[in-house]
């Protein structure tokens, strides 16, 4: 074989472009480090934060100093402490909401894609209705109707993002369920549930991972935007969106009070976008098998 040497034997024609793959690793490494930083700060927030985030001091709208690394806000609270503790709230809401949306999306997408026919039609049309509403309008309506509490916010965001994830799950399921190994498994008596969970789901996981990461980025943005509009967790609990809203009036006096939460939002959103791009390149979503 190898003596002929016309073609490199060990280079399968379907392998993803190596440059994209390498870029993918870099992006994932970068995103991973960013995520780690975020998780550490979030997890150990109360130990890291130098002050009580709700503690008022007479030293209001102070600039950068040794005592207050990122200055203080309009009633003298330490911006860094509020940023760290506020991140906990924002990320907590995001994580729970996306987990719920992912679970619902998986169940609905798998059900719809695997069953097909009338079930598929009903599920997808119902999701289309949700999909048709602009994200913010729907979120504002629900939160305004039910009250701005954290559970309501989580539920709303989960509902809003479920259709997107369900669609991403359903698409590849439609094709993978027709693959031979699924029929072969069915021919030896594997149950429907097991077929879906162990013979279909693992093959459609790549696009789901990428979409979940993108949804995390979007959700952080949505949570902070809703908080900015006053539909987030009620004060005095700090959160990034709320901090922006409060600091808005003093932007010229103390630019740091706006820049700091804005930077945090950008950092968190960027983390998941970088991860999503990395995953997409590495898993070569779109060109499987």
């Amino acid at each position: 074989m190898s003596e002929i040497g016309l073609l490199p034997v060990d280079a399968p024609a379907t392998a993803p472009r190596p440059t994209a793959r390498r870029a993918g690793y870099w992006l994932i490494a970068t995103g991973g480090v960013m995520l780690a930083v975020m998780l550490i700060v979030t997890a150990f927030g109360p130990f890291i934060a130098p002050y009580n985030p709700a503690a008022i001091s007479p030293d209001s709208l102070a600039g950068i100093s040794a005592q207050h690394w990122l200055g203080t806000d309009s009633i003298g609270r330490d911006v860094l402490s509020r940023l760290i503790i506020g991140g906990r709230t924002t990320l907590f809401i995001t994580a729970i909401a996306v987990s719920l949306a992912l679970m619902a999306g998986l169940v609905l997408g798998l059900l719809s894609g695997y069953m097909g026919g009338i079930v598929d039609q009903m599920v997808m049309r119902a999701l289309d209705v949700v999909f048709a509403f602009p994200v913010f309008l729907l979120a504002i309506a629900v939160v305004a109707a039910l009250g701005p509490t954290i559970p309501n916010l989580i539920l709303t965001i989960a509902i809003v993002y479920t259709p997107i994830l369900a669609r991403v799950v359903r698409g590849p399921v439609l094709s993978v369920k027709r693959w031979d190994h699924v029929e072969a498994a069915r021919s030896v008596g594997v149950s429907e549930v097991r077929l879906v969970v162990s013979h279909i789901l693992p093959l459609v996981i790549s696009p789901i991972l990428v979409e979940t990461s993108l949804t995390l980025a979007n959700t952080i943005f949505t949570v902070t935007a809703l908080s900015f509009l006053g539909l987030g967790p009620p004060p005095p609990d700090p959160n990034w969106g709320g901090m922006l809203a409060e600091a808005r009036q003093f932007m010229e006096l103390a630019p740091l009070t706006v820049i700091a939460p804005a930077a945090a939002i950008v950092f968190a959103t960027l983390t998941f976008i970088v991860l999503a791009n990395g995953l997409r390149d590495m898993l070569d979503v779109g060109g499987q098998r």
Partner: protein
Amino acid sequence: MTEPLLDVTGLTAEFVHRGETIPALNGIGFTVAAGEAVGFVGESGCGKSVMARAIMRLAPEGSSVRLGGAVRFQGTDLMALSEARMRDIRGSRIAMVFQDPMTSLNPVMTIGAQMADMIRRHTGFSARQARARVLELLDDVGIRDPQRRIDDHPHQFSGGMRQRVLIAIAVSCEPDLLIADEPTTALDVTVQAQILRLLMRLRERHGMALMLISHDFGVIAGMVERVNVMLGGEIVETGAVEQIFAAPAHAYTRALLDAVPRLDAEGRQA
């Protein structure tokens, strides 16, 4: 005469597509005795594969197939069984080997996991017992060094080896009937012979009945006692292998036999 293992009468299948019905099987009837090897030959699209799937009630997912007729297996009509009872029969009493070994294994599960999964489904073995059985089966179907290969993924196996694995899965619960749907079509000729020999050996050992579906008279001739010739969703001729080869009664059978290139006949003339 004892009751046959499998008694198919008036089996019909039609595809329903956008309100139109397209017939695939027009009332097929045949029997398979316990331990017997029966061949099915016919051209592409004559309904061989649909028939195999109809017997196991494996409708292609998403397409609407309407089945009719009766499939009596060991005295029970499979068409009348609930899906759950049918699942118990699939794999344990009737098993199937598919045409394309390259795509018939789950690419993200190890060989061992796929096999153990299925064995545990039908036997209630513990994970350890199932693994031991998997090793035994792999050895049985001629996978060298099963200890080392059991945790490999399908892509690390060649086509012939994958077909061996699929056969191992099919016979793992010692079914009474094995349906082999073009089991060698996707393989090299040399590997074909090995796989056919393996099927023969396993059939004799376990006393399984075998339904061998192929378009290749050569494959059929060496393996079975009785042949059914299929055309357009019907069985047009049935008989012992020697009889069909020596004196084909149906014009289509003659045409099929004539279509096989004959090395010996050519050679003698030259």
